């Protein structure tokens, strides 16, 4: 994984020192809150419902064990003993004191981390496939380009005050696990006819109150030209994006207003100039970064492991977990492990991890996964490179730490925003609803037989819980002072991205688990066989019969 050199380290340390100075000026009363706000936002410090919230960047979701241990330490020392992993592969601490924020940034800088550009109207943390470098279907390693983009976009002189925030996601595998078409710019790497790495460029995706799936604007962009191309996109957006209305300021609105073809032409004209004026990093810089992402020294292991097979026969719980939470790896004899942060429990919110749990995963990463862990946008952790022989030991340690819920991709693996429990903007709670739905399907056999089903919950129209692209999406709406929820059906965030369709009228929170259960029961009755997933059946039959089931007894 990428390690800072002297230049990266100097940059991040200087930013931390600068923020220390700004916080001191604020605490001394030299800066008003209004003056301080843009400065703290550039360092990821938000003012939330109850307190400050610090959002720390985990670039493209990659963590070393040392970094993960440091996040655990920050949770323990400066917060209430836990952190919240987000749908943008970041981590949020919900209770830091303003006076401690500079110390936290120093602690982060010591382990090559920062909170730069995790908020504000700038290019945000670049997200990517959490299985990068491990997945069998990978064509090109997206981390190389994500790191180059991280550097290129950091304190960009022209694009630090865009009309609105700007999110870039990149994947390099056939199956899109990074939801790239739900981003302002989505990059899907593929292999060109001559073996060069090419990028398919999507622009103008996004959720919020006006959701769009991104439009394809370039099919075959040589990857090394993505910097000039993104510069062209950002310049067109910076100059012509709306600034009069915060709800119409994202690039998706500009793309829709101009029309995709006109927008793409304008970008293309600009690109012909930026590729001369502002070429991206030279090839040796890309090679330097790529050298950090070479494959770890995998052992020459047989594709089958007899100790793993034996453990599956001996222990049904392990066998179930191995079926749901381990995935094929590109190296024979290895597996990818999903560490579930979605326990079926009222104690933890989706994506939360205690400091002790972070330490457990850090230890496992160090011992069994070449020192690496990942954060997925689905708010789980990943151990990317685990030997099949080691899976029983990894499972035992995760199970002891309540991190082995066997529910990857299943009905209880729910994405949820922090909702009204934490967030200033929310209309309704998300976390208790996610917990109630998970409890309704607490029978693991039933969950497994239902198969892949992605439920995503947002507490308000800003859609941080990605409800537009859930197979079942749930949106909290304020209705005459009560908490009501709208249900959407048929969204998906993969390479066949689609927006869910709103189904009928809103339901009270307590009616939602019943409604979800009815629609799932309906699906089980109509599916052709166990291989036809919920989303497949919904696309085959259309949403109407599912909608009817949803409201059957209301």
């Amino acid at each position, binding site marked *: 994984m990428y390690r800072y050199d002297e*230049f990266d380290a100097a*940059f991040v340390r*200087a930013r931390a020192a600068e923020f220390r100075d700004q916080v001191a000026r604020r605490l001394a009363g030299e800066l008003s809150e209004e003056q301080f706000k843009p400065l703290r936002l550039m360092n990821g410090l938000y003012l939330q419902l109850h307190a400050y919230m610090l959002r720390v960047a985990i670039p493209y979701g990659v963590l070393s064990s040392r970094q993960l241990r440091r996040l655990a330490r920050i949770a323990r020392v400066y917060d209430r003993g836990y952190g919240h992993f987000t749908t943008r592969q970041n981590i949020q601490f919900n209770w830091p004191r303003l006076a401690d924020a500079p110390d936290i940034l120093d602690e982060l800088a010591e382990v090559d981390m920062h909170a730069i550009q995790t908020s504000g109207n700038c290019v945000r943390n670049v997200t990517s496939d959490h299985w990068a470098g491990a997945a069998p279907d990978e064509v090109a390693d997206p981390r190389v380009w994500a790191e180059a983009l991280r550097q290129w976009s950091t304190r960009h*002189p022209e694009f630090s005050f865009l009309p609105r925030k700007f999110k870039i996601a990149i994947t390099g595998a056939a199956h899109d696990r990074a939801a790239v078409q739900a981003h302002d710019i989505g990059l899907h790497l593929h292999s060109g006819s001559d073996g060069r790495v090419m990028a398919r460029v999507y622009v103008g995706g996004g959720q919020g109150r006006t959701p769009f799936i991104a439009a394809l604007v370039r099919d075959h962009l040589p990857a090394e030209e993505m910097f000039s191309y993104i510069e062209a996109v950002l310049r067109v957006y910076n100059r012509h994006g709306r600034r009069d209305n915060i709800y119409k300021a994202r690039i998706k609105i500009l793309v829709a207003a101009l029309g995709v073809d006109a927008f793409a032409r304008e970008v293309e004209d600009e690109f012909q100039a930026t590729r001369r004026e502002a070429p991206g990093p030279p090839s040796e810089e890309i090679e330097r970064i790529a050298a950090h992402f070479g494959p770890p020294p995998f052992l020459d292991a047989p594709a089958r492991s007899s100790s793993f097979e034996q453990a599956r026969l001996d222990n049904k719980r392990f066998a179930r977990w191995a079926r749901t939470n381990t995935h094929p790896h590109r190296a024979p004899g290895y597996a990818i492990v999903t560490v579930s942060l979605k326990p079926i429990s009222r104690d933890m919110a989706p994506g939360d991890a205690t400091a002790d749990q972070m330490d457990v995963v850090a230890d496992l990463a160090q011992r069994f996964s070449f020192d690496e862990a990942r954060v997925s946008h689905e708010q789980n952790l990943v151990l990317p490179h685990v030997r099949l022989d080691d899976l029983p030991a990894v499972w035992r340690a995760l199970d002891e730490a309540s991190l082995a819920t066997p529910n990857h991709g299943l009905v209880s693996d729910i994405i949820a925003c922090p909702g009204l429990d934490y967030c200033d903007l929310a209309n309704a709670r998300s976390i208790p609803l996610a917990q109630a739905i998970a409890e309704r399907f607490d029978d693991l056999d039933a969950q497994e037989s239902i198969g892949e089903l992605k439920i995503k919950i947002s507490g308000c129209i800003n859609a941080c819980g990605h409800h537009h692209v859930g197979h079942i999406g749930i949106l909290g709406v304020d209705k005459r002072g009560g908490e009501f929820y709208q249900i959407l059906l048929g969204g998906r965030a993969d390479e066949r991205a689609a927006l869910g369709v709103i189904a009928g009228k809103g339901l009270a929170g307590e009616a939602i688990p019943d409604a979800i259960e009815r629609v799932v029961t309906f699906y089980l009755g109509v599916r052709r066989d166990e291989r036809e997933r919920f989303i497949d059946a919904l696309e085959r039959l259309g949403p109407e019969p599912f909608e009817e089931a949803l409201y059957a007894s209301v």
Partner: protein
Amino acid sequence: MRPSSPAAPRRAAPSTLVGPVAPILADAWIDLADNARAACGHAGGVNGADDMQGLLPAGDIIVELARLASVPAERPGRLGVRLRGDAHLEAALAHLPRLGLIAVEFSTFRDGRGYSLARLLRQRHGFAGDLRAVGDVLRDQLDLMWRCGFTSALLRDRDPLAALAFARGLHRAPYQPGADATTPIWTLRRAAATRA
């Protein structure tokens, strides 16, 4: 408890003309396009151009984009133009050889359009005169402005010397090239690797 958000005194801060290194003490430009000054009765900002043909003050003047064409070529004194964020850049380009200064207006510090205008003027259209940031210019943006090709700024700050020192602290080796001569980190890396 939720920290309070006191109202800001920022708008009241005085403006000082600065360059990247120091305040600019001698500046001969008269900004006829500055509506704020006009409202205060200073330099007589003018919106209606028609009646002003013979009434332009002597010396170096900054006019609005819409008036540029009506300023006589033979007029003595240097000519500058003030561009708003939404300015139609192409309309200014025809006049570029006549212009000694372009003032780019930031209506609020959040309005980032001026950074793009600056880079286009410098890097694409070769403007070599003074490029000046005016409007809501705060110390925290100065380093970005210099990097986009601005050479002066009308800074709103109570302590301009401290502000310049602060901005110089921000102006370190950047990750990407801009319109100025600052060397990006990737070039420094190559140089370091060659030395090693």
